[in-house]
């Protein structure tokens, strides 16, 4: 196994190196590097991208790689080899695709940052680039992880980086708070994930995703266990399948946290406090994507647990609609994008839960491009608007920043799912898969499908509300009149991503395959390669779903696509009617009482803050009072009682010698009586 894969660790280590360089620069406190340390980051991500592409090429050639490269620790098990906790690289179609996405987006974000951060005169740039470098490195480490523990570790590091970057502007009140919230909420999810990791080890004795023939990975073991070929340890008296479901749901906790699924999505809108390029990175390629990627990574395990899949689908579908509705009323550009992210990842979850492994991966891919694009575009606008993010202060930017506008428009069309942009293909495939699996007696999936379908017009509506308010009509403020111009380092990434957002759908034209029979579903083929246990058709074999169609397959495809496209256009049209006017006004009042509900995000933040401030904190204070009063009070009481009894005992010593004599006599008499009785010579 020599060759390109030996450079696998370098993909992770290059950005890490750039992190170290940036940290060194930051510590020195001097301006040692040009561009505040951006250059090493750009070089490193570019290097990683090159390597990733090379690896993807190798994978395309049918090669895969799964090697343990470092043994972290070995737990002693008397009489056997022990439990090995290792680090390893797993490079297969899925991870190599993800590597390319991550490195590409990271590279573009680095470049964009030159414009967004450097040109804007930010301070603390080495710290910023250090964060980006570590962020990229952590995500890449997560992507290539060949076992669940390693994945968890890098998953956590991703969380750390999000904290550091969201809170980059630590002198302001908002960012540190948002950073804290992001870490805390995702940590809550990770708590379950960690239990899941522990449980996987305890259940299977390994957490390898793939493993070898002799020692297969845990998804395979789970399969075998259900087939009765392997005895997995189960706990708490649960049956094998029930236990697997529990473990799967535990791991899912981390996914829900990181991928901002209901009910742990609340951190994500707040995370917009971070610099915009960071948002792009978080949303498109790293942190949020990590959750969905994890499910895809260990899909074989979920596939054997129908309950877990059902939960995933339902959570995803619900989140897709739920988040979309909140995006409808937001005034800030980035807030709209934030809710769109939550919503889009909901789609991916829906797909995964519905057995649409390819669809989910596909949407992950296209979303990475168009969401990165939209964020960078938004960044461009924000830069132009001197960091005013309120869309109601914009308007008419279309003519002043055409590059931004057209690329942003491409991204918006993709997000809204308008044919033929990338988002259309992937979203359509998700809905299609959900539908056909749901029709085959899975009412849960049909519910998810309805959610997903309803989310389509909502998505289109808020997306184009955003576009129209920002770029169309007349400039509503002076800033919008004369926006700051942006340079190549902003425009370049926009152009690249705009192109990708437009055409990336071509990698998996599944409906076309159905229509024409031509094998144009390249991604499907791609993901069907590599380790046999990790292939699409393997997953299809083990998952609990089969397909049913309305009419025939073709009819269903066309019907589904038509409905979703129609709904998207409906939403777009509505947005056009309401906001593509010279003087748009808020129409939120028409929503009636729902308005407040939407503005306040269904009180999701409120109840979580309530839980924290009104439940946990008082409980903590009560515990503190209890501790000080009762526990410590008991300790102090022992000493007080001792001292008090001491002060009583010393009163025996009255100072009058006659009393002493009396006490001596009494004491002697008492002893005589007691021992007389005991000794039997008195009474």
């Amino acid at each position, binding site marked *: 196994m020599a060759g390109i894969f030996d450079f696998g660790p370098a993909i992770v280590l290059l950005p890490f190196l750039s992190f170290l360089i940036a940290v060194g620069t930051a510590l020195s406190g001097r301006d040692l590097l040009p561009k505040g340390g951006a250059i090493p980051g750009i070089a490193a991500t570019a290097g990683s991208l090159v390597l990733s592409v090379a690896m993807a090429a190798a994978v395309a050639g049918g090669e895969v790689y799964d090697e343990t490269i470092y043994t972290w620790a070995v737990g002693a098990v008397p009489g056997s080899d022990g439990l090995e906790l290792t680090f390893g690289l797993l490079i297969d179609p899925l991870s190599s695709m993800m590597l390319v996405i991550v490195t590409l987006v990271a590279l573009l974000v680095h470049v964009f940052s030159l414009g967004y951060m450097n040109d804007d005169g930010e301070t603390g740039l080495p710290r910023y680039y250090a964060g980006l470098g570590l962020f990229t490195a952590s995500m890449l480490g997560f992507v290539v992880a060949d076992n669940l523990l390693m994945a968890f570790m890098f998953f956590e590091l991703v969380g750390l980086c999000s904290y550091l970057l969201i809170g980059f502007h630590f002198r302001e009140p908002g960012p540190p708070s948002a950073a804290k919230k992001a870490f805390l909420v995702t940590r809550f999810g990770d708590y379950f994930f960690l239990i899941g990791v522990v449980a996987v080890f305890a259940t299977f004795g390994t957490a390898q995703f793939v493993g070898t023939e002799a020692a297969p990975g845990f998804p395979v073991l789970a399969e075998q266990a259900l087939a009765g070929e392997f005895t997995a340890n189960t706990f708490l008296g649960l049956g094998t399948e029930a236990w697997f479901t529990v473990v799967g749901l535990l791991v899912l906790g981390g996914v829900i946290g990181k991928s901002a699924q209901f009910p742990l999505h609340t951190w994500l809108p707040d995370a917009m406090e971070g610099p915009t390029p960071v948002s792009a990175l978080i949303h498109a390629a790293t942190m949020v994507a990590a959750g969905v990627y994890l499910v895809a990574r260990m899909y074989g395990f979920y596939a054997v647990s129908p309950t877990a899949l059902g939960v995933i689908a339902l959570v995803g579908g619900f989140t897709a609609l739920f988040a979309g509705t909140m995006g409808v009323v937001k005034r800030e550009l980035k807030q709209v994008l934030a809710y769109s992210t939550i919503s889009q990842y909901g789609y991916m979850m829906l797909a995964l839960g519905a057995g649409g492994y390819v669809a989910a991966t596909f949407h992950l891919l296209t979303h990475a491009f168009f969401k990165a694009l939209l964020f960078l575009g938004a960044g461009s606008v924000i830069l132009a608007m001197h960091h005013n993010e309120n869309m109601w202060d914009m308007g008419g930017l279309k003519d002043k920043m055409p590059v931004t506008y057209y690329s942003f428009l491409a991204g918006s069309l993709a997000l809204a799912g308008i044919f033929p942009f990338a988002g259309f293909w992937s979203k359509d495939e998700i809905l299609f898969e959900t539908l056909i699996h749901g029709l085959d007696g899975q009412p849960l999936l049909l519910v998810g499908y309805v959610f997903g379908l309803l989310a389509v017009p909502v998505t289109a509506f808020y997306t184009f509300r955003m576009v129209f308010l920002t770029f169309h009509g007349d400039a509503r403020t002076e800033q919008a009149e004369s926006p700051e111009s942006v340079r190549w380092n902003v425009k370049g990434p926009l152009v690249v991503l705009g192109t990708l957002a437009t055409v990336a759908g071509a990698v998996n034209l599944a409906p076309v395959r159905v229509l024409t029979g031509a094998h144009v579903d390249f991604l499907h083929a791609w993901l069907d390669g590599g380790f046999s246990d990790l292939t699409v058709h393997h997953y299809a074999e083990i998952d609990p779903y089969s397909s049913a169609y309305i009419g025939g397959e073709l009819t269903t495809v066309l019907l589904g696509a038509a409905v979703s496209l129609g709904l998207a256009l409906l939403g777009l049209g509505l947005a056009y009617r309401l906001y593509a006017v010279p003087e748009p006004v808020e129409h939120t009042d028409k929503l009636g009482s729902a308005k407040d509900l939407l503005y306040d995000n269904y009180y999701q933040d409120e109840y979580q803050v309530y839980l924290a401030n009104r439940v946990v904190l008082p409980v903590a204070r009560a515990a503190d009072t209890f501790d000080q009063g009762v526990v410590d009070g008991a300790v102090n009481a022992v000493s007080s009682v001792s001292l008090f009894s001491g002060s009583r005992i010393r009163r025996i010593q009255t100072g009058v010698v006659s009393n002493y004599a009396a006490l001596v006599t009494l004491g002697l008499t008492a002893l005589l009586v007691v021992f*007389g009785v005991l000794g039997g010579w008195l009474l």
Partner: protein
Amino acid sequence: MSDAGSRPRLKLGGHLLPGLAAVALFAVLAIVFLQASFGEPAGFPEGASITASIGYAMFNVDTGILSETVVSGEGFVVAFILIAIVLDVAIDGAVFLAKREEDGRIGGVLADGGREIRDALRGGDD
């Protein structure tokens, strides 16, 4: 002590009360002694000189070599020497204590627990 200046003292009417302890002690002793049973007293042999015997015992005289009848007893010569010293010491101590001091108070030592100073400062007993 509620009222300042009142030293604890035995109450006049009840000053015999502690005596009950002595009565109780006697009761206990009496009960024990009345239960004791004794054999016949060994008594002293006829013609033995008790005084002489005491003398022999007092000085550890080996009575085996004496012809007269003696009552045996343990040797007390050590006790005798000791008692001499005890009396010596008693005299020494008693004389020392009884001596009148010519030069007023002794030294600067305050061995009353600092109470004198405290009382002087507070102007009274506590």
